[in-house]
């Protein structure tokens, strides 16, 4: 075990996987010499060379499009999109190609690759450096969508994805890159499976579902709720696709109450999907509305960022609302 930040854990995962498998290549803007604008890829080019750590021209569709070609051919590309807000020029390659290649070729061609990208708010980045676009990808069959919330998961999930057979959108909550530290196993074979939620806090009164940086906001809210005697069960989903429906339903069936919290834009977000699954599969267990705490249906603001992002207080009032319903 070592104590690491999320950033260090990701960097360690990349170093280990590149050392383990020479088919793993990284590519993206400013990831080589500069080590990435967040330094997630620091040291990789010096260690593995310019052939395996490529500084690309400024074109996300080119980064993803060439990575798809590499993956088809047999490499294991790990492209970086500098901010998830800049993934949209590559959207066609992701939705039309990366996600559908295996299906449309009957498995003759596959696309094992991991698109790493910093996402979410909290760094004063305004419209274009703060968004949480996970719903776009969760709505796209063929993709896997993964979001770690702790350093150990950051490392273990990224390693699992790089070893996997299918394309992944790996969203890195940039707000906690350096602010969250934790114990991380040193074993190079340490991995964390997809589709298995983590019970970040056990509780019996209210189920609180979240992922990414918001897990830490939820934890604060849960501790506050406990002071009022409301014991919150906090689920950290880890992967949104596949989604651990069983753990969610199991918890909700026990608590009868559910809050889902996320940073993203409210309408048609992943919180709505979780709510819909519960309303379809476990409605007879519910004793209160399913409340969503989310970003607003506006573009992400700059000066008022702290108002836009769900605060522990906003999560707490939702918990209180369902607990007291």
């Amino acid at each position, binding site marked *: 075990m070592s104590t690491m930040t999320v950033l260090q854990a990701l960097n360690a995962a990349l170093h280990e996987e590149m050392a383990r498998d020479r088919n793993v290549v990284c590519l993206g803007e400013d990831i080589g010499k500069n080590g990435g604008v967040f330094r997630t890829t620091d040291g990789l080019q010096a260690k593995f060379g310019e052939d395996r750590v490529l500084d690309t021209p400024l*074109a996300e569709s080119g980064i993803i499009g060439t990575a798809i070609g590499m993956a*088809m*051919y047999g490499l294991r590309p790990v492209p970086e999109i500098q901010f998830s807000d800049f993934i949209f*020029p590559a959207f066609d390659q992701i939705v039309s190609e990366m996600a559908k290649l295996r299906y449309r070729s009957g*498995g*003759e*061609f596959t696309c094992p690759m991991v698109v790493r990208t910093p996402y979410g708010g909290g760094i004063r980045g305004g419209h274009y450096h703060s968004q949480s676009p996970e719903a776009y990808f969760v709505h796209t069959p063929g993709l896997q969508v993964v979001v770690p919330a702790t350093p150990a998961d950051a490392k273990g999930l990224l390693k699992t994805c790089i070893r996997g057979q*299918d394309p992944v959108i790996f969203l890195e909550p940039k707000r906690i890159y350096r602010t969250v530290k934790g114990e991380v196993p040193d074993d190079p074979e340490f991995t964390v499976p997809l589709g298995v939620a983590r019970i970040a806090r056990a509780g019996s009164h209210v189920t609180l579902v979240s992922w990414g940086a918001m897990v830490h906001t939820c934890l604060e809210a849960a501790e506050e709720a406990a002071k009022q005697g409301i014991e919150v069960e906090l689920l950290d989903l880890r992967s949104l696709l596949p989604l651990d429906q069983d753990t969610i339903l199991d918890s909700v069936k026990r608590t009868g109450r559910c809050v889902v919290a996320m940073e993203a834009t409210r309408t048609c977000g992943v919180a709505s999907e979780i709510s819909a699954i519960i309303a379809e599969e476990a409605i007879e267990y519910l004793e209160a509305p399913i409340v969503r705490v989310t970003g607003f249906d506006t573009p992400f603001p700059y000066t008022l960022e702290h108002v836009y992002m769900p605060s522990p207080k906003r999560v707490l009032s939702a918990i209180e609302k369902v607990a007291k319903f």
Partner: protein
Amino acid sequence: MSESLLTILGPGGSEKTRARVKLNESELLSLWKAMVRTRALDERAMKLQRQGRIGFYVPSFGEEAAQVGSAFAFGKDDWITPSYRQPGIALLRGVSAERMLDNCFGNSGDAALGRQMPVHYSHAPEHLVSISSPIGTQIVQGTGIAMAMRIRGTKQVCGSYFGDGATSSNDFHTGLNFAGVFKSPIVFLCINNQWAISLCVSGQTASKNMAVKADAYGMPGVRVDGNDVLAVYEATRVAVARARAGDGPTLIELLSFRMGPHSSSDDPSRYRPKEEEKAWAEKDPIRRFEEFLITEGVIDRSTLEKTHEQADTEMAEAAKDSERKPAPKIDTLFDDVYAELPRHLARQRDALRAEGGDHAADADAAFPL
């Protein structure tokens, strides 16, 4: 980049031509037969479509030299990212007509189990990458394949095919730009058939021609008479050798003409002058090559007729065999979305099984393009 067209098969007499041909008789015959079979497949498939036996087809009438001549310059281990309008490449590389028609019938023999529309083939054993509909996507993927070849150091080369319309796509731009920067072993083959559905090439771009676009990416651009199979082969051979030697990519423009409609759903009389069609019918690349082969004594009239008949028969039999195959099983709907069936798809499959038959009425509107 020169503005003139590379041409070998000159009009009248073959003295000058012969001197420039680097292929032996058996190679010339291979080229020719592949062209003839391509035409026969297109004709058969268009017939099947008109008879309502397959849903859709895209013929490549008039582009046989461009497809086959260029593909002939690649090795067996090289990879190709084709578009939907190069059936000849697959035939040349050994894909049977039956396998191709399995895709058009969307039956259980199709590699992709009838999941895609007709002419969206996947032929992995022949290194022909799965074709999709969005225009241009295969260009940048081809660059990625070539970058991977270079990283692995295999000396393989990738060939990427696309039309004049595709040069306007985002992926043309990034595909060529990345290839230029990373000196990738790829040959870009733009089959300029002068039409993108109803848009003629002067509405597609204001550039003098397609080959000049190579300058924007620091690679050589070559313009070739795309109806001259020998010129097409020669230009591609040089570019493939260049790529294999590590000297980087080339853009080749193959000037040709889409002699048929865009697809079985299209009606060119709405937008294209008949005279243009007539003028280009005169330049049919198969007839042009056959004149040379006859003049040279490589074939005679009777071989010619027999070969065409054989090709027709081949395609008719393939269609018969393919049409007999059953549709894919309903459960296959859920396979191959991921390497392993995830729980949510297993649930959806089980729910469908429980519901049983009585599905939505079959398609009730015609495909428009």
